[in-house]
């Protein structure tokens, strides 16, 4: 499994990344970044037996703007950098040739978590996933953590 992941993401080789879940087809990286582990998120054409979940009222088009809007609906705003800020949660959108490919979410420890398509979740340094599969980070957004979420962070080991 590790060899397979590192073959796809050579930037992970020799780093302290961790596989944090088994393979799971039920959710993808967009869902995982959005805190949803029950749906596969993608702006497929609607009204089709194969349609994935996409937030209502957000255009179902594979553009950076549509992805920005999907996370704006969850309370995220565009920010300047991917550095950890206490009291906030950040998400980073990866794109290749202008096409959205991946979203990662920052953890309370400052590292990042990603669901790798229908495969595993991994904890990693943000830019270790860049290159041929997901491209590079093109947009970072953040939202303030709620009091309850901050409490969970405070209780985290």
């Amino acid at each position, binding site marked *: 499994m590790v060899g397979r992941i590192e073959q*796809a993401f050579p930037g992970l080789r020799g780093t302290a990344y961790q596989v944090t879940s088994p393979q799971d*087809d039920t959710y993808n990286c967009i869902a995982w970044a959005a805190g949803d582990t029950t749906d596969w998120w993608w702006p497929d054409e609607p009204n089709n*037996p194969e349609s994935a979940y996409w937030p209502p009222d957000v255009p179902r088009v*594979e553009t950076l703007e549509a992805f920005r809007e999907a996370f704006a609906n969850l309370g995220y705003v565009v920010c300047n950098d991917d550095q950890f800020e206490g009291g906030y949660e950040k998400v980073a959108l990866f794109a290749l040739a202008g096409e959205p490919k991946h979203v990662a979410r920052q953890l309370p420890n400052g590292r990042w978590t990603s669901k790798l*398509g229908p495969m595993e979740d991994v904890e990693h340094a943000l830019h270790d996933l860049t290159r041929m599969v997901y491209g590079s980070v093109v947009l970072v957004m953040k939202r303030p953590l709620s009091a309850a979420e901050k409490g969970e962070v405070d209780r985290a080991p």
Partner: protein
Amino acid sequence: MSAVPSKQTPDMPSAETVEERFHRLEATWLAEVGYASSSTALRSHPAFQEIVGLGEAVVPLMLRDLEERPRLWVWALPRITGADPVPESDRGNIAKMSAAWLRWGREHGYRW
């Protein structure tokens, strides 16, 4: 009547069964786009398209996989069967879609 020799391609051994071919194509599919979140990329991949092209013979194989755990075969089954047993409200929920296809399979007499 003499049999017409079939052409052999390097990637499809003549003795390969449908099940072996299904698993070989699945392995290719996951190796090449298995880290993609784009359902468009996953469904448009040639190996996925070839699996769909195997037709009804692979429906029990997909249902067997769905019995084990929810799988993305829920995107291939409508194309193969022309059926749509998933309520619109469950689209995107791979677990509920898998359950709906398993029910459909039982109702339509599939064994897996």
